[in-house]
């Protein structure tokens, strides 16, 4: 990704915890399920976070395959992340985010296991989003 600035505008709607997001005119609704105080009208922020991770890995896989070094017919990526809800609800002794994330790459391919493992290592090493989650980044909150 080049150093162009990517922006999203997020407006809290008048429905529960629902947030309307506008990215270049692409609208998505983000919400929480009812058990977490929302109205369940869209993905949660953490689901969107690991979705972005999966999309980044898919994009890198296609880019690498285009170079001709690897080849596959189809790739499905399943991602799971565990959160302790006590931490999410403010217990200071428990982390409020993911404790662990698991990624499963499922390939339809003629590559052997060794090639697949090399491919996955290369995909991961090139994913911005993988890096942003596996290493701490700076978050700056400003008041306009």
């Amino acid at each position, binding site marked *: 990704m080049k150093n162009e600035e990517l922006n999203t505008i997020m407006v809290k709607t008048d429905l529960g915890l629902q947030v309307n997001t506008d990215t270049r005119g692409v609208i998505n609704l*983000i919400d929480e399920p009812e058990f977490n105080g929302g109205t369940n009208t869209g993905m949660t922020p953490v689901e969107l976070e690991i979705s972005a991770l999966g999309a980044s890995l898919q994009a890198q896989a296609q880019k690498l395959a285009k170079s001709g070094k690897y080849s596959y017919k189809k790739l499905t990526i399943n991602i799971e992340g565990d959160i302790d809800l006590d931490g999410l609800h403010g217990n200071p002794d428990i982390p409020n985010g993911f404790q662990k994330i698991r990624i499963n790459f499922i390939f339809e391919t003629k590559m052997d296991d060794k090639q*697949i493992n090399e491919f996955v290592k290369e995909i991961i090493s090139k994913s911005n989003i993988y890096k942003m989650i596996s290493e701490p980044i700076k978050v700056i909150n400003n008041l306009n």
Partner: protein
Amino acid sequence: MALQTFSVTVTDKDELGVFEATAREFKIKFSSQPQPDAITPEEGIVTALGTCENISAVNVFLKHHLNYDRYQLMSHFTSPDEIKIDFDLKSNGKLFPEVVQTIKDISPVYHNMTNAIPITTMATKKQN
């Protein structure tokens, strides 16, 4: 301990550079380059952080018995090392320090961005 597992599946589509993420009954379309009907992974990550901060801030408004509808945030991605979030809290700007502290205390995506999260990977081959 009340462990909750969040799961998504991201699949490639027939169109090169287009992917679909599914979590429970919800789908979001991604593309590797900006498209009129899909967001990029980088746009997805800043949106995840911004919406999480937005939802976390609701707690502050509730605590002070204030109306929290229609306030907005703008998130900016400039590099993989930094995300900026601008808050427009309307007439409630004085609450900003408390909002930021609440985000640090309860926002899971803020936690995930500012800490190193352990990630394990496995690869399997689908048998035809």
